[in-house]
């Protein structure tokens, strides 16, 4: 038969595992390449966003005046001049880019504080929500996908497939509301919103526990959709890997089914799953906006929503830029991870 062919297949992965700790020149090259490619992307995003936001009818001065109830023409002119809204468009753009070059995101007219500070207050809340949801979704999704692949075609697989498809079809904000109804209103187990109990003086463990209790429902609402995605992805990838020759080899040399599934199939199937995790980061951030609205979670998403409503363009530009930067950074990280994991991946 074709024995030599079978043996050669698992070699690259073993080599990668041993070389994992030392970043090889190849991996560094991959990192440099992704960073170089990211610079024009981010620049285009900034300029595009800038012009997109200037298309909006009304500006921060209009909204402020509207909320105040009345404003004279002089007040309006003064407000516009203060926020630099009376300058020609290109001058505004260059002023903004100049600010960015000095790592300043500008000033928020509405909150009257630096945008960076404003974002800095909200970012940790959103990041913790996103990371918990992503981590949870990956863990549960991969486990469910592995079970589905192991029982492919049988009732376990079918039941889980239908469940995954159901999760895939549920709007995050709706499941959020339903979880509030069940766990806050009916059972009274978990808080229905906010990041911590207002007015409660907690310290140490109590404070941590309080925050954790507030995190449960938002995380679950955000994660469900991605649990479904990763379960389906893992299942598909594992079935594909299972058909490979090296799995037959592993089985033929007498490894237990569990060892074959976990060490040989799952490990190789994780590559496509990690790629997709990077792709989903942007979507996760969008989902966070909606979930944060449902749970009055003081995060970046709610800030974005408030900024849209208040025409606070500097804040919006900052959020769009920052979230794009996070996506770029995570994708670079994933490129790096993959170049390390799989030497067959071509580095241009």
């Amino acid at each position, binding site marked *: 038969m074709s024995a030599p*062919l079978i043996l050669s297949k698992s070699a690259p992965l073993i080599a990668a595992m041993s070389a994992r700790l030392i970043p090889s020149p190849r991996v560094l090259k991959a990192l440099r390449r992704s960073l170089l490619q990211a610079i024009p992307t981010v620049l285009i*995003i900034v300029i595009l966003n800038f012009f997109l936001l200037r298309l909006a009818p009304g500006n921060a001065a209009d909204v402020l005046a509207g909320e105040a109830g009345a404003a004279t023409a002089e007040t309006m002119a003064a407000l516009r001049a203060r926020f630099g809204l009376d300058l020609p468009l290109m001058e505004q753009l260059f002023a903004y880019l100049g600010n960015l070059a000095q790592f300043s995101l500008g000033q928020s007219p509405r909150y009257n504080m630096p945008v960076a500070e404003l974002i800095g207050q909200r970012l940790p809340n959103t990041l913790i929500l996103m990371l918990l949801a992503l981590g949870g979704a990956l863990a549960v999704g991969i486990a469910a996908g592995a079970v589905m692949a192991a029982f*492919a075609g049988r009732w376990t697989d079918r039941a889980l497939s239908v469940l995954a498809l159901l999760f895939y*079809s549920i*709007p995050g904000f*709706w499941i959020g509301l*339903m979880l509030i109804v069940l766990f806050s209103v009916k059972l009274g187990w978990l808080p229905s919103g906010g990041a911590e109990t207002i007015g409660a003086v907690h310290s140490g463990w109590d404070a941590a526990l309080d925050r954790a209790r507030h995190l449960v429902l938002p995380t679950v609402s955000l994660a469900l959709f991605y649990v479904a995605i990763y379960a389906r992805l893992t299942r598909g990838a594992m079935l594909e890997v299972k058909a490979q020759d090296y799995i037959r080899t592993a089985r033929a040399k007498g490894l237990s089914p569990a060892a074959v599934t976990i060490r040989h199939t799952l490990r190789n199937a994780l590559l496509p799953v990690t790629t997709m995790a990077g792709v989903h980061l942007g979507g996760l*951030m969008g989902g966070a906006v*909606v979930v944060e609205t449902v749970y009055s979670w003081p995060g970046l998403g709610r800030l974005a929503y408030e900024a849209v409503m208040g025409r606070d363009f500097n804040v919006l530009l900052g959020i769009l830029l920052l979230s*794009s930067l996070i996506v770029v950074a995570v994708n670079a990280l994933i490129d790096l991870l993959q170049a390390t994991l799989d030497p067959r991946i071509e580095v241009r």
Partner: protein
Amino acid sequence: MTSFESRLPAVASHGVDHGMDHGATDAAQSAPPPPAWTNIHAPDALRATTSDAERLAPVGRWRATRAYLRNPTAVIGLLILAVVLAAAALAPTLFPEDPLAMVDRPLQWPGQNPDYPLGTDALGRDVLAGLVHGARVSLLIGAAATLVSVVAGVLVGATSGYFGGRIDDALVKLVEVFQTIPGFILLIVTVAIAQPTIPAITLAIALVSWPAVARLVRAEFRALREKDMVMAARGLGYGHTRIILREILPNALPPVIVMASVTVATAILMESALSFMGLGDPNTISWGSMIGAGREMLRTAWYLSAIPGLAIVVTVLALNLIGDGLNDALNPRLSEGR
């Protein structure tokens, strides 16, 4: 044999995993030599075996339809969608009154009043009428946004994948930019900038949905333009437009069709999230806006949020079932044993 030859490119293009294809080629070469068919020179033919041809039978244009109809979950999806479509089409006949008009005492629970089987909301509006009329908005926006994004995605992806070079670089950059900006945030910003009307929401959803289609189409075109049939078409002197539209596009369509059904589902989800947040068209009723309105009464009248949400879940689930069914029916090689 002719039918076998003509369907090969279409089938081969669906192999997402090229590693497996190479493995198959190696195996075919090291295995006992295949019957010497000196008349076949296409590279694809090397790894074709008789069993492949048998597995692809029944041949014919109805093969995919039959494969789809044999799949029970896919048929269920189709049936559910048919019901929702019928409800949307019959809404003006079933509930001729304005669904935003007050009809009875507010906050009647489902089952309380036989005239309003799903109850009334905080303003005394019929929930069932809202549900049926809301189906129109959801399906309309879902379908229209998908149509726009598929057309845009195919245009960009085909140009990019077929011509390559500088055009490709520029378009890939464009797609990358759109995929880096978090889609839903971009959607909110766009809708807030334009006025929240149905056409504006549709275009905004299309704006965040087309890059995925473009990526897929580009990958298909890049794989297909190297095929012998394209070379043959070029040799016959066909122009670029004809090759793109008549030779490559039909072969690239199956995965695009699958993606389109999923895009409709995502578009419906996006529209509902938008109108839930109060960014939808205020003059029409939609499932998302019903949930948003019901949210105020979540503690006392949770059915107001639950019912329209179930409508979204069922519709989106149906579309996803259809997508899965189409995928299995159109890509027979990928679905084997799954």
